């Protein structure tokens, strides 16, 4: 699709980013010490911290990826919403308060609190860096996806802009500016999404004047000489949805039939909206490939709304509808990773160091759960609204939410795109902050034993932030075409496998040894990464194998590793701790 930039969108976007950067420079003077730079002096109020949790956590994957997944496949995107939110229960009841009590600036501080071991610091810091980089990829991909329609710039330009802006934010005032950026972003994201959902409910559903027939396949062929759409060169008046709009008055994603044969519903309440959707027929688009030309084709398929509100419609969760046990294990494994991954994400855990005590940590978690929960309920309406908006880009699921906003006018499109862009800024700044802390505080100071003054530690953190920003830009360009939610699922798998067994056993099993912690993190990290890299999903979506080749070549039975690698981490920790307990207590 060709996206035209809007001056209003550019103005809103520029004002927003300018304000955020000005705030960062203004706050820069408050973050001269290590305590200020890495933990905002531990003086952030619990309410601000709670909303900042939402700003940190509600990433591009949540906003763009989940909305896109629901818009394309129905209920499956909502499964991510449920899993992501459920993970906060683990954070609230198991991890939050002990981590606050044990740590200082980083996750490695908490894990090493009983041992004072360079080995624990090293593996914890490496795990933090790997998880943060894994999580960075989808955020940067989301940034590129946003800038295309907003500014009319290519993907790489968006990735570079986000990378540069975030690096400036983190390098100027560290956790102080990161906290305020995340607070502003969290507030605006939830408020704007609630507003868009109100508009969706007010609009209700409408059936296009002329029904789309099952044989109206649309096609797009990209070649070195140019892009061909439906047999003619791509042009402003020949885009993928141009023919549909001319003949049916709607683009991709529409209602085929409403209950009782009505053609429009008018405004609907939240429950009536879901009821009406469940009783309607929806025109979805099946992606395929033309055998002769090799063009990508999109064929209309009318599906019952009730079927779209069930799990298993997307490639990621299709195992739910498969009777084979191995397919179901893939689904169970991903849901386990989402449940356990939240409380293992370094960029979330370091936010507990920005408040003064355990009580404030707890209160801020409650505020965070409230804001995040409201947002995730809204995602279902945003996704279904996009699915029936006639504004989908079938080549890019990440664009569903901004394109939905455009159906309500360019002003809202500009605002929501700018908010979405800030969404990326907030999460990426948290990730780079976690990585910078791991490099400067854990690796340089505690592992390599460099004698760094307070100011030198801050300077090292800033240099690390710049380096991580550059790496993030490179990864964001490389992984342009992947659905961002899918990528985040991997990050949760790795985080849960590497960090959770060590954190839980450190807190609740007195016989845990430093060797057990080191072995558990190392095995969890390596095994989950290896599993993911050898999975059929990776072979297909990263290495470019066909679906059949991927299944034949993969040596792991399913793609999501957590159901194997998390228990493995616990077992390794227990065995190694038992084996080394005597050595640690032996005299001398």
């Amino acid at each position, binding site marked *: 699709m060709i996206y035209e930039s809007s001056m209003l969108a550019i103005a809103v976007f520029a004002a927003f980013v300018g304000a955020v950067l000005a705030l960062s420079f203004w706050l820069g003077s408050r973050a001269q010490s290590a305590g200020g730079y890495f933990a905002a002096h531990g003086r952030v109020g619990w309410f601000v911290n709670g909303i900042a949790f939402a700003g940190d956590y509600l990433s591009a994957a949540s906003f763009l990826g989940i909305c896109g997944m629901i818009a394309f496949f129905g209920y499956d995107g909502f499964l991510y*919403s449920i899993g992501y*939110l459920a993970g906060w*229960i683990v954070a609230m009841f198991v991890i939050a308060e002990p981590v606050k009590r044990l740590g200082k600036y980083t996750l490695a501080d908490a894990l090493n609190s009983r041992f004072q071991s360079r080995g624990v610091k090293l593996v914890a810091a490496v795990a933090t860096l790997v998880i943060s980089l894994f999580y960075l990829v989808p955020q940067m991909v989301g940034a590129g996806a946003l800038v295309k329609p907003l500014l009319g710039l290519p993907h790489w330009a968006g990735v570079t802009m986000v990378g540069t802006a975030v690096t400036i934010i983190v390098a100027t005032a560290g956790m102080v500016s990161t906290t305020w950026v995340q607070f502003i972003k969290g507030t605006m994201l939830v408020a704007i999404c609630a507003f868009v959902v109100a508009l969706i409910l007010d609009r209700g559903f409408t059936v296009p004047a002329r029904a789309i027939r099952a044989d109206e396949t649309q096609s797009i062929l990209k070649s070195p000489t140019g892009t061909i759409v439906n047999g003619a060169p791509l042009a402003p008046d020949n885009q993928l949805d141009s023919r549909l709009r001319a003949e049916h008055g709607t683009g991709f994603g529409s209602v085929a039939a409403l209950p009782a044969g009505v053609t429009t519903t008018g405004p609907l309440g939240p429950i009536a909206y879901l*009821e009406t959707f469940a009783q309607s027929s929806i025109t979805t688009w099946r992606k395929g490939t033309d055998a002769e030309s090799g063009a990508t084709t999109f064929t209309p398929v009318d599906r019952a709304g009730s079927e779209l509100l*069930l799990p298993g419609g997307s490639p990621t969760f299709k195992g739910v509808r498969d009777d084979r046990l191995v397919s179901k294990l893939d689904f169970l494994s991903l849901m386990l990773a989402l449940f356990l991954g939240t409380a293992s994400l370094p960029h979330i855990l370091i936010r507990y160091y920005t408040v003064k005590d355990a009580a404030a940590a707890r209160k801020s978690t409650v505020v965070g759960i409230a804001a995040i*929960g409201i947002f995730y309920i809204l995602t279902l309406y945003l996704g279904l609204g996009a699915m029936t908006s006639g504004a989908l880009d079938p080549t890019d699921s990440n664009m569903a939410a901004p394109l939905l906003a455009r159906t309500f006018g360019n002003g809202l499109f500009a605002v929501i795109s700018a908010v979405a862009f800030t969404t990326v800024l907030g999460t990426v700044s948290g990730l780079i902050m976690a990585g910078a802390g791991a490099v400067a505080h854990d690796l340089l100071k505690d592992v390599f034993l460099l004698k760094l003054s307070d100011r030198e530690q801050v300077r090292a953190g800033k240099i690390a932030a710049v380096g991580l920003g550059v790496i993030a830009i490179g990864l964001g360009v490389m992984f342009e075409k992947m659905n961002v939610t899918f990528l985040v699922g991997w990050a949760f798998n790795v985080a849960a496998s590497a960090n959770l067994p060590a954190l839980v056993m450190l807190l609740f099993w007195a016989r845990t040894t430093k060797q057990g912690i080191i072995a558990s993190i190392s095995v969890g990290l390596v095994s989950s990464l290896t599993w993911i890299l050898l999975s059929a999903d990776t072979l297909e979506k990263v290495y470019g194998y066909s679906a059949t080749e991927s299944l034949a070549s993969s040596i792991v039975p399913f793609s999501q590793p957590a159901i194997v690698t998390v228990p493995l981490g616990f077992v390794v920790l227990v065995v190694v701790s038992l084996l080394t307990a005597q050595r640690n207590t032996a005299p001398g």
Partner: protein
Amino acid sequence: MKNIHARQSRRWLGPVLFVVYCVAYLAFVLGAAFTTFRDGKPVGGLARAAVGGVNLAVVAGMLLIVGAFILALLYAMFGARAHDEPEYDGAPKDDSQ
């Protein structure tokens, strides 16, 4: 003595609420995986109608999200104070400090 019992019961509130939520989440996930489809067709489980034609998959998902907030709030209001209060050892308190 009454205060000690109250504090001890509050200490259990967090783990109990955590187990309650884990069971609910597990039931939802297992329900989706094993009872909703047979041969790719919806046969029951989460496909059953729950509230006014909206299926159990949507309703249960919403309840899990809202339920997480309610449990967290209950813990913050009633359970967590036990962890913040110092253990009372029976000695008279020195109010001068």
